[in-house]
């Protein structure tokens, strides 16, 4: 009995190995097209004890808001020792300057800054924490199209899926860099990434996921680090 099943078992094992290989390679690859654009309006540099803060734009009445995990991703990338940039944690900055950078009160344009900084306590606090640049991140990742269908069945005899799914995600973010001491915009960087993901399924679904937002985050962080350091582009 066991001998008669041996070839099919080996075939099954090979099939599973091949599928696992396909699955892992699919998870590693993703087809993403990314574009970065930079506009410099002033010189930038950071001295000892000076730092930046990266904030997600949540000013109302905007219906959309920048995803918190995208802002965290930029923060974490810029905080790497290799970037050479001091980064203040977003929540800690909002707490230290409360209530001036909340959704209801945050300045929406640089012309609002001088009046804001005229608050004596706020000006003292900003000096105390050493923040020089505020980087506002605006934008989001949206699913722009999707197609296909997949059916999965579970029964006591086994489970399986059949079908094909595909979707396209579009990330569009813009970082505005404000010099908080001069009250001027020193530059803008925009990052756009488009990627198509697809999942074919014949018994086992194989996801080929395009990591669009991760790509936009990586590109924007690298460009921001170069911009703040004043590196030529």
């Amino acid at each position, binding site marked *: 009995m066991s001998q008669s099943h041996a070839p099919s078992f080996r075939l099954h094992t090979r099939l599973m190995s091949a599928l696992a290989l396909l699955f892992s390679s699919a998870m590693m690859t993703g087809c993403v097209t990314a574009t970065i654009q930079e506009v410099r309006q002033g010189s930038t*540099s*950071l*001295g*000892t*004890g*000076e*730092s930046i*803060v990266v904030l997600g734009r949540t000013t109302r009445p905007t*219906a959309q*808001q920048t*995803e*918190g*995990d995208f802002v965290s991703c930029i923060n974490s990338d*810029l*905080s*790497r*020792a290799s*970037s*050479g*940039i*001091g*980064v*203040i*944690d977003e929540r*800690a*900055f909002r*707490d*230290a*300057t*409360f*209530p*001036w950078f*909340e*959704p*209801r*009160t945050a300045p929406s344009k640089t012309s609002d800054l001088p009046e804001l900084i005229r*608050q*004596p*306590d*706020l000006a003292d*606090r900003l000096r105390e*924490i*050493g923040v020089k640049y505020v980087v506002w991140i605006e934008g989001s990742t949206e699913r722009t199209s999707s197609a296909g269908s997949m059916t999965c069945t*579970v029964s*006591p005899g086994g489970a399986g899926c059949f079908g094909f799914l595909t979707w396209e995600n579009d990330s569009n973010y813009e970082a505005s860099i404000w010099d908080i001491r001069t009250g001027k915009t020193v530059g803008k960087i925009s990052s756009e990434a488009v990627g198509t993901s697809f999942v074919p399924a014949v018994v086992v679904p194989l996801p080929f996921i395009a990591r669009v937002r991760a790509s936009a985050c990586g590109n924007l962080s690298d460009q921001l680090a170069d911009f703040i*350091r004043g590196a030529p582009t």
Partner: protein
Amino acid sequence: MKQIARIKSILLLSISALVIPCLSACGTANVGLESSRFPEPLVQRLPVNVAVHYEEALTSFVHEEELDGFGTWRLSLGPAQRTMFTALSNGLFQGSLVAESISNPPAGSHGVLAPQLTELQFSVPRQTRNDVYEVWLKYQMRLFDTDGSLVIDWPVTAYGKASTHDHGIMDGSGTSALRAAADAAMRDAMVVMALRFRSVPEVRDWLSSNSAGNGGLEVVAPPAPQDSSQPTQSGAET
């Protein structure tokens, strides 16, 4: 025997199919804000000593609501109210005290603040077909003079939202995102109170009468801000 095993499997699958969705749709989702922290507002302190009276209805505030088809939600905002109003009054008034009752304010206070949380509304993404949890709060900020007379009963409305994207797939029940939305709404209420309280006409009159007539009253200094409110700096310095 095989038939019994097959029936058992089918029964198990059927029970799972009924129970698993019920865990999210029929259960009670508890949202508590016990661990919330609120910063002291960085505003010019009003030159008065105000005692805050915490009513039982405020500190034990619970909102329970059954959403048709989305289960029961229980939001316990009471425990966070004391933390919130302590931070607010420490930052807003030159002296911040606690009053056991409205009619008997502590010595040295110019008035008693007795906040009430009168209304809470919330929405979940499946209701509104977007990806955010939203919370609306309505407070009644009642300010009493030391003789117990009502100076003002000022309504404050606040709003907070939190995106499902920021709370991961493990937050299937949405409690973490709804907690974040409630936390944001309470911060928003603090913003309104910290920035607008002083410009309410009745409050302005009350402030000017207290500044003129009670200039000699001892001012109680608020406690020093805690280190935890300071930002942490990460990354290398240039």
